[in-house]
């Protein structure tokens, strides 16, 4: 469990970093928090010739919350966001989701940008980003661009970022008024990657019917998955157990074959998704009534 030989660079600017990535095209890897990359190096499953550590680049670290949302620098430690009183007060869903990521030790080291760029399909942050229509700011040799969450996660551990592009910030919009939220997951142990998880956001009309619904499942496919058909089933209908159950069945039924591994079969994951959608919708609707 020792990595093969690699070079290590600590550029002081984004320009310097992208320049390094361009010059070592395909053979360089960005190091942000190291919670996934370092084990992969030690197991010799990843063997980049160069590690580009973003730790010394200024202005990639910070949390800023305003009326529109929460903007987070890519190198901000997950724990910093979790402990931010502004985030806790103004974006309780984001706060709750961060607490489900691994353990405090991992969150002290792991970065928000690192988790999003790594794009593990069972991770919480990608699911939150998709559910909240987050936007991603990236810098590359061709300049800066903004990517919508819906376009960001392509497949397993693969994002829309180009090889020499660096994620610099992510912006999570606030929840709309009169909405409630829930994030629920089942993991083998506290802090493990979810066998299945769901983020639900429910808006209620004044009369109590469902005005809007957003459902994102994670841990059950190659990316976080938006359950659009289940959302459509819900909107306009009553916020009751029967609706939530139908939505769960639809969301689970629409999944392509989820992963089978030593912990859970595809069928079990699918069934968990069904149960969790129902529970998350119920919790979100309860919160919406109090919103």
């Amino acid at each position: 469990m020792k990595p093969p030989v690699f070079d290590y660079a600590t550029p002081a600017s984004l320009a310097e970093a992208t320049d390094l990535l361009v010059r070592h095209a395909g053979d360089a890897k960005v190091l942000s928090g190291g919670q996934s990359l370092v084990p992969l190096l030690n197991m010799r499953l990843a063997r980049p010739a160069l590690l580009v550590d973003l730790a010394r680049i200024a202005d990639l670290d910070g949390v800023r919350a305003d009326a529109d949302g929460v903007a987070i620098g890519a190198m901000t430690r997950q724990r910093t966001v979790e402990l931010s009183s502004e985030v806790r007060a103004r974006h309780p869903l984001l706060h709750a989701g961060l607490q489900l990521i691994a353990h405090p030790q991992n969150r002290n080291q792991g970065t928000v940008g690192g988790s999003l760029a790594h794009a593990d399909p069972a991770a919480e942050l990608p699911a939150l980003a998709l559910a909240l229509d987050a936007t991603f700011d990236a810098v590359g040799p061709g300049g800066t661009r903004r990517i919508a969450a819906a376009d960001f996660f392509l497949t397993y551990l693969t994002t829309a970022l180009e090889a020499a592009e660096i994620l610099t910030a992510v912006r999570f919009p606030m929840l709309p008024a009169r909405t409630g939220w829930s994030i629920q997951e089942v993991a083998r142990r506290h802090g493990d990657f979810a066998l299945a998880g769901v983020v639900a956001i429910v808006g209620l009309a004044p009369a109590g019917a469902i005005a809007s619904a957003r459902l994102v499942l994670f841990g059950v496919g190659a990316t976080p998955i938006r359950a659009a058909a289940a959302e459509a089933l819900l909107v306009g209908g009553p916020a009751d157990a029967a609706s939530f159950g139908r939505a769960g069945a639809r969301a689970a039924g629409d999944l392509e074959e989820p992963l089978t591994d030593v912990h859970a079969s595809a069928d079990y994951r699918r069934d968990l998704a069904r149960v969790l959608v129902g529970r998350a919708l119920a919790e979100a609707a309860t919160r919406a009534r109090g919103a």
Partner: protein
Amino acid sequence: MTAPEKRLPGSVAELPNSAPRYVGRPIDRVEDPALLTGRTQFIDDVVLPRMLHCAILRSPHAHARIASIDTREAEKLPGVVAVVTGEDAKRWSNPVMTVPPGWGTHCLATEKARFVGEPVAAVAAASRYVAEDALELIAVEYEPLPAVADARKALELGSPLVFEENGDNVMLRKLFTWGDIDGAFAGAVHVVQREFRWNRLGANPLETFGVVSQWDELAGTLTCRGSFQAQHHFAMARAMVFNLPLNRVRFISHPHGGSFGGKGGARGTDITALLSRKAGGRPVKWIEDRMEYLAGGASQAWDRHYDAALALDAGGKVLGFRVRLLDDLGATAEGWGAVSAAKPLTSFTGCYAIAAAQYDLTIVATNKLPGSPYRGMGPPPHNWVLEQLMDLAARELALDPAEIRRRNFIAPDAFPYTIASGNEYDSGDYAAALDAALAMGDYPALRAEQARLRAEGRYLGIGLVNTIEPGVFDWNAYAIVGQPGTGVPEGATVGIDLFGKLTIKVGFALEGQGQYTVAAQVLADWFTVDIADVRVIALDTLSAPPHFGPGGSRLGVALTGAVLGAAQRLTEKLVAVAAGLFRTPPEHVELRDGRIGVKGRPEASMPFQEVAQTMLARSDLLPPGVDPNPEATYVWTAPGRTPADDQGRAKSYLTAANACHLVLVEIDVETAQVHIKKYWIADDCGTRLNPANVEGQTQGGVAQGVGAALLEEAVYDEDGQLRTSTFMDYLLPTIYEVPMTEKRALCTPSPFTPLGAKGCGEGAMHTTPGAILCAINDALVPLGLELREVPASPQRLWTLLRQAKR
């Protein structure tokens, strides 16, 4: 002629101290300041001059012939000093001895590899990084062979053979019958029979194994520093492997971060010894990494298929207990894992008076990692099977689980009690432990709460299990799998220095259980000194008195015996000197409250330290003929042990602690998750030498029991590939999964041990898996389901629950 040895004190009251300050109190551990401030030197902290670092190339195949190995490119890599393969192992060493015999190999695969992770070649280099780089340059040509990874398939005709020369894969097959088992089943009113499956799991100490070996060609010696659980045992095995006289092999055990039977490390020790020899005697260090440990270390045990039955009369009295066990030991018997199939004989029928029993034992080889010992050494699965059958019988007879147990307990006045499988229990009051647990948990209220919540569609389950913890192991318990010997020595040397301070020299390293504290407590109370005046140090295999070290819940008792015996001998020396000084016959002189003096004459006494100082610095005052060395050694071994008969029956483990665990779980039947809501333990291990140590042992055992019941499983696919090769997939319990248990201590002292203490290192591990599974099955009763496989993973539970829906 020497006078007959005095009996060791059987209770704290017998110590020569009117007011003992330490024994029996939860005092802070003397080990902890160094551990908590990071100053304890573990094996990876050891740096020797010119030391090299080893990395090991391992087989990616479960079963493959090795056609060729080319190490030339690796040898050319700058920094590489030596490379060894099976050819070197054959030239310089022997295959390891095994139990059962004949199922061992060299430390590096020779003609073929038998499991994924088996060492095939190794490199010694300037750093571990370079050594691992060099592994990638070794070219091994494998010819894969069909593998067998399932115990039942290994028994089939035509199965791949792990050792072709042995003709089949059966390592051991024997039927043990104790009492009239056929009569018991023929006369039974109720018979409860089920199959059970316990999947592979094992020890995971915080620190894996590590060693630094140095081969001195000129002196003909091998010196190994390492995290050895039982250094002398290890040294003996290396002497045999390398054809060295035992006094040319020196083992120095370093403090280590736990073992639980999982330290292993024999192959790594032998490989580093070969590398050191090839590298001209330079020391070679190998630190096992976690992936090596999980795939190739002492990390797996108890891969078991059970078919078991209870015969009962109409009143719920158990007449007979039958167990058929198919035990999958993996590729070889090198890891002492077979011992785990033997140990259940020490407590086969648990807390119950069952006159007849039968054990139909088959141990097979498969292409998986060789099985190793693990805390409990076999009874945890056995107890789970027995206790689950007790619950099933209770359901069939419409008895409460507490009641059926109560009807079968060995009576408190029946001790010492010889069980059907031959061991003798020293003492106990099992109903008292049951009553204590039921009272702590308010059992009637728990049942009422269970019924109330069931009406709301919630599934709570209550588990109630009583077990024996055999303590103070003896080799004779393992005779049925080929282990020779009766009696396990543990020695200690106690000395007083010129300035009046005390030293205890022992033959085992710090491992975490707090035994140095126990030794210091006992000696401080013997001589009535402050515990800070006692120092405990570990000696190597060539300087320590005969010893084994920790294992089989023995060391607390054995060490107490050794320290008390040495203290008693030392006191006799002091008395002989003082008798001369006081011009009184020795029988009139005694040690009392730290002073040596004439009995009944308090004015004619002196501090014991002054007597020692006289011995060391005032020869002019010494009576003629006395030994002037204020130091004594005593080697304790359990009294009254008997060799096993042809049915394996022996007086083996000296003590029988007992416990009752009561646990409340809730099953989320939609997600198939189990939540432990509350956990109570009533535990009787006789005199508690240090109650805080005992509580730590209990809580730690619960943690491993929770892991066994719910999480831990080494999964192989049908080709023998390990699918749980990291801690992402092999799941240990964390603090979030382990409940803090509520505990109550009971005390039935052992009549056989010094101070009345019993072995207490494994009891919770013996009990927790059974208790949690009984609780899960109690919750499943209304659904008509039984879960008879461990661990009770959510996948297994979900599959079962889905059957109910259909």
